């Protein structure tokens, strides 16, 4: 599908800047829309107001402490960060993780995917102006949040993964397993009901069909990642290559059109796949310990790890010196999707521009870690 999103070379007459505070944005970002008669001809999306310097704080910390700090990178996919950070250490220190711990990690990750996707759908509905859909999705999401709280003791930062396994707090007993089973049944039923209602709503379909469309070629050129990439029809899911996911059967969902509709449906259809993985993990949950504590600290070179998180490919790397962490780099999926967000805006109406950004599932608060110093006192308009 072509969204007529061709960048024009002529001088644009009007610019409409939005943000960094805006009602359609969950996070602070600046969106500059270059418009002609309310149709976006070009867009510029800038982040950089939410610097927290997490990688800098991590430098020199003991690895265990630094790992737990990675959870603070993101409030939505906190488990993904701490899991990947632990994977880096485990890879470098050659630690075997007990199978039961691997399964619990997978359950946590898929629960997080459920809550991230449901949040995406609810936020998308809100930007669409459909508050009723948004509210109902948030209610469905509550079940996932309660399950995460039950396992990790917290609704946002569960801290499940530690080096060598998972925290004892996250052990799954019969009662917890039963509650997860019931939760999955409820979510599956409600999400499918929602999907049925959603796709049969002509007004909603009219708003989302063909909006912010990205072709396969554009997605490759713009280095799109995650469900946004799969919504264009490209079947890429890192979970297929991750050894942790080898025991599980699931389908990689794709859509064809790459527009808002395809992106929303992508998340809806990925939810049953995550539920399928969770059910398999519960059914085949191995017996045994959940933490391997028999490992020794040693110096390592830079170790890299990629995993598939709800928004796409997440990268963590660092090296260990004297048990302390050095050269930490984190790259979240949203940083690679920014170009796609800008591109998706082009050709849309202003009202749809924020929707085109939201369709790529931005998480700028976790992406925004670059420091920027502007030389204001001398009014040189220069970025150092």
């Amino acid at each position: 599908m072509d969204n007529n999103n061709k960048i024009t070379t002529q001088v644009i007459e009007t610019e409409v800047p939005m943000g960094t505070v805006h009602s359609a944005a969950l996070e602070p970002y600046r969106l500059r829309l270059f418009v002609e008669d309310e149709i976006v001809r070009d867009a510029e999306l800038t982040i950089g107001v939410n610097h927290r310097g997490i990688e800098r704080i991590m430098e020199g910390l003991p690895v265990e402490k630094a790992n737990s700090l990675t959870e603070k990178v993101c409030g939505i996919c906190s488990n993904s960060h701490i899991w990947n950070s632990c994977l880096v250490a485990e890879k470098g220190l050659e630690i075997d993780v007990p199978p039961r711990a691997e399964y619990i990690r997978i359950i946590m990750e898929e629960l997080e995917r459920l809550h991230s996707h449901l949040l995406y759908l609810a936020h998308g509905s809100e930007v669409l102006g459909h508050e009723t859909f948004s509210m109902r999705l948030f209610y469905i999401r509550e079940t996932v949040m309660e399950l995460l709280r039950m396992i990790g003791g917290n609704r946002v930062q569960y801290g499940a993964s530690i080096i060598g396994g998972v925290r004892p707090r996250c052990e799954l007993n019969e009662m917890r397993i039963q509650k997860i089973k019931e939760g999955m049944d409820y979510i599956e039923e409600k999400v499918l009901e929602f999907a049925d209602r959603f796709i049969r709503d002509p007004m909603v379909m009219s708003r989302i069909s063909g909006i912010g469309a990205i072709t396969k070629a554009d997605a490759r050129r713009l280095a799109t990642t995650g469900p946004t990439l799969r919504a264009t029809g490209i079947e890429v899911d890192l979970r297929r290559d991750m050894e942790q996911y080898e025991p599980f059967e699931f389908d990689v969902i794709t859509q064809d059109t790459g527009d808002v509709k395809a992106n929303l449906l992508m998340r809806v259809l990925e939810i049953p796949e995550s539920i399928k993985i969770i059910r398999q993990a519960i059914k085949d949950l191995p017996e045994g310990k959940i933490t391997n504590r028999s490992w020794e600290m040693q110096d390592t070179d830079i170790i890299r790890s990629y995993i598939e998180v709800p928004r796409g490919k997440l990268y963590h790397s660092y090296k260990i010196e004297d048990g302390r962490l050095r050269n930490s780099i984190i790259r979240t999926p949203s940083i690679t999707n920014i170009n796609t967000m800008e591109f998706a805006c082009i050709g849309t109406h202003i009202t749809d521009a924020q929707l085109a950004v939201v369709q790529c599932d931005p998480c700028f608060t976790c992406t925004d870690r670059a420091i920027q110093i502007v030389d204001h006192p001398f009014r040189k308009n220069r970025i150092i």
Partner: protein
Amino acid sequence: MQIVDTDISMILISLVAVIGTLIVAFAVSVWLPGIERKFVQARIQQRVGPPISSPGFMAPIKFFFKQAMTPNSPMPQLYNALPLISLIIVVFILLFLMPQMYFLGALASIIAVVGLLKVEEIMYMFMGSLSKSVLSVNMPFPDLVKGAKYVDATRSFIEEISTLRAFRLIAFGSFPLYIALFVPVAMARSIYLKDIIAFQQLNGPVLFTVAGAIGAIVYFIGFMILMNEYPFAIMKTKADVMEGPYLEYMSKYRAYTYITRGFLIFVLASLFATMFLGIPPNIFNPGILVTIAVAILFPIFMAVMSAFSPIFTFRQFYPVVAATSILGVLAIVAAFL
């Protein structure tokens, strides 16, 4: 002497009727936003919702006691005065609907009502033009130096976009409401409210005719467009222009906007009761209960429609307005026949 006394007592009774009707209108209108949000939207969305008195009654009171800051406007005093002017215009519309004011001739006609509604709509253009909030161009964000692609582009405030949309609403967006108003005019063959009411007293309400029923549907859609409610809220879309013209109203000025909105719901319901049911707003007429019932039903229906629809962009807005307007024209043709 007795004739003079009778005249004075008639004037006094009329005065009491007018003031009484205004008080009833105000008393009812402050509850309407609460009914809309508490009993309909919140119930549909399965949440508790605000207290019923909060949106229309307690919130304006609260805002009256808030500290006001100077808005980022080139003419802040005029900007702040506009909600009050809007309120006065809406009050005048209600005044001209009352039977006691029919002696004013042309002012108590549909042309005057339409004219005043247009003036009320124009207020949004002034509000949008005079607002320069910090949420767009004025945001202290150094984006001009960040490799800007079009440095020579005119930089527009988001309120300016809502001003352009307000203009579009004036130009054609509110067509359905105005076309629907001319269905009773076509049936009564008169633009004067007293003639339209007299026609309905003789022949029954316009609503219960085919043309009137179609006109009522068109009127209701026009009502939603004029109220700027979802899905027609293009002037204050959260996804881009946010609150639009109202963005910088605070303290008592925001209270006026709340009161005006509630009052406008009541006035448009009264207009419907007058034009389609033949019942003008008058405290001494039991028919005022019908007006109040219409005033309660309108926001309820509006809230149901709003709760189940996304915001429209022009791609949906234009066809809906065009189709509704055509339906309205058909209703007028049917009314003439």
